[in-house]
Every structure is written in structure tokens, then in C-alpha cells.
């Protein structure tokens, strides 16, 4: 066990955590926006897979990884659009629609991607060391020797936090998730906003997928997201719908994943399974806690999450 607890080991785990947490981060941030607007989208796994495939395919066609990311954005957004049409306009059950989206994404990506399995992309996001910052001992290795998408993530998190809590559109976003009737009365177009945020959520999930196929594990294989989409859904709750906390959660979950991978090599027997369980158990605890705040004291979920909004006759 002693070789596990060296600083060097921890540093390498954390660095891997940041790298692998990036995919989770993007997907979870996107889902945070969607859920904040009141729409639960359980299709994250499917959207990530389509994003991963699209990113890979577009990169293969164009030779550019960044254009690949753009392709992933489009793919994720289109997938999410299906969910938006079904749940916002046609008022379908959000749980079932999201699950259908996951199934569809898994199936479609595996089908369309069959001929791409095992190929390497012409370009991928390689690690770039930021001058000066990357030379800081430990911290530099962890945070500043990452690929471009991770760096983009560093910028996205505070930007999103600022957007949600400090801007007018962010205020409206929070309002439609908390009390769509009041938002409607204030002249906000609830349906249109929900469409926008669900699609943006999908776009982010697409980026998350591209992180995997173009940065972390360049290439494509069936179901390569391996359940990360579901973890992203859990992350949103764990982070209590706050982008900053979601980011922290992504790092935590990423660390668990990285640690478990490394611990398998070392002969630490079974504790890795329980380590893996902890994030999910934590999420349940967080959810219980968030629900138990007195009804008015909603530090928890957006009050209107999951319920279609239909304007009452005046």
C-alpha cells in the first residue's frame, strides 16, 4: 500500500482525473442547463456517444480535430432537439423520452460507427503544457499539462457560473425551472427557452463525447462512453445544479475513475469497488438532503423539473 500513497502517485491520479473528468464535466454542465430550465434529459449517454462518433468522423473527413468538435456539437444538439420536441411541445413523459434517446444514440452510433472501429483519427488533442504555469510543482502537472479541451473547460465553468447567477438570461433560466407560471406572467417564452437550453445541453454532451474520442482515447469503439453519460446525470444532482459544484464533482468522479484504474495494477484487493460506489451513494445522500430542506427553502432541485408546462386559461 505504501507505494500507493506517494505524492507522485496522487499527482498522477489527479492529473488523470482532470483529463478524464473533462468529458464528464461538459456533459454534466450541459445537463445542468437543461435541468435548470425544468427539463430532465436522461439521454446524455446517447448524446455523448453520437458526439463522440460525429467528432471522430468529422475529424477523419476534414483532418481537423476542432472541426470534429464542431461536428460533435451539431450531433449532440440534434439529438437533444428530438427530446425537446417530444417533451416540450408534445408533452411526452420526460423519463421515457430520455431513455429512448439513450437507446437510440447507443444503437445509431454503434451502427454508423461500425466501419470506424479501431481506426485512429488523423489528429487528436494532444497534451499542451502551458508555459510557466506547468512548471509549478504538482499543481502544474495536474492542471496545466492537459489538452486544449480541458483548458476550454477551465474557462467554461466560471463563464457558465457567471451566466447562470449574474446575468439576466441566467435569471430567466432559473425562473423557468423554478416557477414557469410566474416566468410566463413576466413575459418569458417558457417553451422557447426550454428548447434552447435542452439543445445547448445536447451540444455540451456532444463535446463531452468528443473529448473521449478525440482526446482521452482517440479513436472509436462501440459504447465507448461506458456509462459516463449516466454519471453525468448523477453529477448534476451531486453538484446541486450549480456549475461550480458540478465541476468539483466531475473532478471527484474523475479521480475515482483514475484511482480505480491505477489501483487495479497494485494489489489493493476489493476496496476499489466500494470506492466506485461512493459517488453514487453520495449522490443519493445529496438528493435526500436537498429534498429535506423545508419546501420553500429550495437549495435543491429546480422546482418545476420534470413537469411539462401548460399555460392555464386565464
Amino acid at each position, binding site marked *: 500500500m505504501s507505494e500507493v500513497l506517494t505524492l507522485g502517485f496522487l499527482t498522477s491520479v489527479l492529473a488523470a482525473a482532470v483529463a478524464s473528468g473533462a468529458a464528464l464535466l461538459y456533459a454534466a454542465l450541459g445537463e445542468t442547463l437543461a435541468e435548470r430550465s425544468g427539463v430532465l434529459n436522461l439521454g446524455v449517454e446517447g448524446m455523448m456517444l453520437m458526439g463522440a462518433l460525429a467528432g471522430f468522423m468529422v475529424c477523419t473527413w476534414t483532418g481537423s480535430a476542432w472541426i470534429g468538435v464542431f461536428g460533435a456539437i451539431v450531433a449532440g444538439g440534434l439529438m437533444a432537439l*428530438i427530446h425537446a420536441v417530444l417533451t416540450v411541445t408534445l408533452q411526452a413523459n420526460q423519463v421515457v423520452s430520455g431513455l429512448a434517446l439513450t437507446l437510440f444514440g447507443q444503437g445509431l452510433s454503434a*451502427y454508423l460507427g461500425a466501419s470506424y472501429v479501431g481506426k485512429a483519427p488523423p489528429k487528436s488533442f494532444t497534451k499542451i503544457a502551458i508555459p510557466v504555469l506547468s512548471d509549478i510543482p504538482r499543481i502544474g502537472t495536474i492542471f496545466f499539462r492537459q489538452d486544449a479541451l480541458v483548458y476550454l473547460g477551465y474557462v467554461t465553468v466560471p463563464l457558465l457560473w457567471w451566466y447562470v447567477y449574474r446575468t439576466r438570461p441566467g435569471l430567466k433560466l432559473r425562473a423557468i425551472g423554478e416557477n414557469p407560471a410566474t416566468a410566463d406572467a413576466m413575459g418569458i417564452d417558457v417553451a422557447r427557452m426550454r428548447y434552447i437550453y435542452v439543445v445547448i445541453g445536447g451540444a455540451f454532451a456532444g463535446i463531452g463525447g468528443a473529448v473521449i474520442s478525440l482526446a482521452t482515447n482517440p479513436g472509436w469503439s462501440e459504447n465507448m462512453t461506458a456509462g459516463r453519460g449516466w454519471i453525468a446525470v448523477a453529477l448534476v444532482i451531486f453538484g446541486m445544479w450549480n456549475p461550480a459544484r458540478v465541476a468539483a464533482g466531475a473532478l471527484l468522479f474523475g479521480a475515482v475513475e483514475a484511482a480505480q484504474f491505477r489501483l487495479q495494477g497494485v494489489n489493493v484487493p476489493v476496496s476499489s469497488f466500494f470506492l466506485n460506489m461512493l459517488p453514487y451513494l453520495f449522490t443519493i445522500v445529496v438528493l435526500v438532503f436537498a429534498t429535506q430542506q423545508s419546501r420553500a427553502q429550495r437549495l435543491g432541485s429546480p422546482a418545476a423539473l420534470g413537469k411539462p408546462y401548460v399555460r392555464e386559461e386565464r
Partner: protein
Amino acid sequence: MARTPGPTLPSTEPIRRWTLERVHRPTILAQAIVTVASVLLGLVLGGIIMIIAGENPFEVYRAMFTGAFSGEYNLSETLVKTIPLLLTGLGVSIAFRMQLWNIGAEGQFYFGAIFASGVAIFWLPDAGPWVVIPAMMVAGMVGGALWGAIPGALRGYLGVNETITTLMMNYVAILVAEYLVHGPWRDPMAFGFPGTESFSEATYLPTWGTTRVHLGLIFGLVAAIVLSVVFRRTRWGYEIGVTGASERVAQYAGMRTARNIVLVLAFSGALAGLAGMAEVAGINHSLQRGLSPGYGYTAIIVAWLGRLNPAGIVVVSFLLAGLLVGGDQLQITLGLPSAIAPMLQGVILFCLLAGDFFTRYRVTRVRAIAPAPASGEAAS
């Protein structure tokens, strides 16, 4: 009005205009038509995707159909896959009827398998089939029920959203299974492939002829019958129906909602747990990793497509099993990924969800009428 346009003034002249009127109860006929139409439309859309990908959809569908249903072997394999889908689908439908979104059937399945395996390996390794099989059945149901009752209690007594808790419990269950299979329950004699030792032959569920179709099918059909009786003919089934229709009416009638929520999720989990038991006792004969290729999630599709109706679920589970088996066969016959199956499932479900909208709303022309007077508080 279903749409949410911007805040414009409603017209004040009594004109005739198009509007969407809510249909109070979609008839069975309407639902059946929509179901069939969605399946067909889904197949058509799937076909279009195949064309774009450069395949001939007719060939694909024919290969799938043959792979699933033609010949004794294919048909039996479809029945084999029907079993877990039927049981988990029935389980999930119980919860859905009460508007409880149990997406934890996967975890409940695993826990049922775990408990049943525990009985087979440790508790009754030497017992005869008449003892050990019922014991495993009970254990499987208890395991699944436990895994359902926990989120049930959280929802019933603490109001915690069951969608997320059941989802999280899936991961925990799979990890517990993995832990057992890699750790304390690991078969020391099986190198490489992680799993428990094989169960004694006494635990093998009897099969039909030379096929792999096992007693689990009977479990499923019996469960379907029991469920339809429970829903329609028992007091408890009535309470579930009322609570699912309106919690407030249930409260007004004095029904114990919290208790019912726990019971429903436990019952739901028990069926999924039974499915897990049937899978380990009928097919694998040991607890292994990757026991379920997502049956618990497909179960939700089965339940929804089957309209939460036991008879419908029987039919749909068979058809979806056919889809899965047909998809698997595609790999062999045409070299295509079996992923076509979940893709088609997704598309069909989209069509169904969209189609449902039109059973709930009807486009009509109406004279602009007065809004309902405000009830209750000092309205003027």
C-alpha cells in the same frame, strides 16, 4: 390550450378558431392504433437511416425476422430473451401505474440474482430441486424487493425523487455483484473469466426439449396473469390505480400513500429480482459479471410500449426480444452490428411518444369561451 406562445391577448370576439382540445380518455382502440402505427413508422424511419448508411432495409429486416422467428432454434432463443424482458417489464409497469418512475429494474435484477446465487452456493448447495428452486425464487424476489423498497421508502416518507435514486441504486447493485464475483464469491477454479462457481444441477430450471427456454417463461406468464388480476380485481390494485390517478383523491379516501409507494416499488423490484434469479438459474448457472445486457432499461421500453397492460407487455416483450435476437443474428448473417436493435427500439419509442400526443389532444374548432371562474379564495 397546450401551446405556450408569447403573452398575446386572447381574441375577444367570439370567433371560431382552431384549438387543441384535451381528450379526456384515449380509447383502447386509439391507443392500439397509435401503437401499431408507431411501430410501423419506426421501422420506416429506421429503414431510412439504413438507406443513408448504405444498407438495404428490406434485406436487413428480413434477416432480422428470420433470425428471430424462423426455425426452432431461433424462435427458442427469442423466447429465452423474452423471459427477462417480460418479468422486468411487468415489474416496471407496476410502478409506472402509480406514476413512480422506477428505472432501477437493472439493479433490482442484479440483486435478485445475487440473493438467488447466495442461496444456491452457500445456503442450500446440496438440496434437491424441489427445495432449492423455490428457495431461490423467494430469495430472488426478496433481493429485488429490498432493492426497490429502499428508494420506495425514500420517496414515500421523505419525498425523494425516485427516478434518480433508483438509477443510482443500479450502479451500486452492479458494483456489489462485481465485488462478489471478483472477490469473496470468486470461483478459485475458473481462471480469467470472473464468476462464481457453477451451481449444482439441482438448481437448473427445467427447459423445454433441447432448447434453452426455461421455466422462467412460466414465471413470466403466471406473473402477467397475477398482475392483471391484482390490478383489476383486488383492493390493493384499486388503491394503486386511484393513487396513480390522483394522490389527493387517495388522501381524501384515506389510503395510506406512503406505505403503498414502498409496497409498489418493492413488488416492482421483486419481479425484476425474480427475473435475475431466472437468468442465473436457467441460463448462466452461476453469477457472472455482465449478467444483464441492459434488460432493466429495455424493460422500461417494454412497459411503455405495452401500455402498462400485462397482456400488452407479454406481446411486446416477445417482439422486443425478437428485435434483440434478430439484431444479434445480423452480425452473423450480414456482418452488421447488432446495435440496429436498440436503434430501432429508440426510433419506435420516439414515434410512440409523438403519437401519444395525438391521442390526448384533438384539433377542433371552438368558439372562444369564458375562462373557468376562479375557485376558492375570495374571487370576484
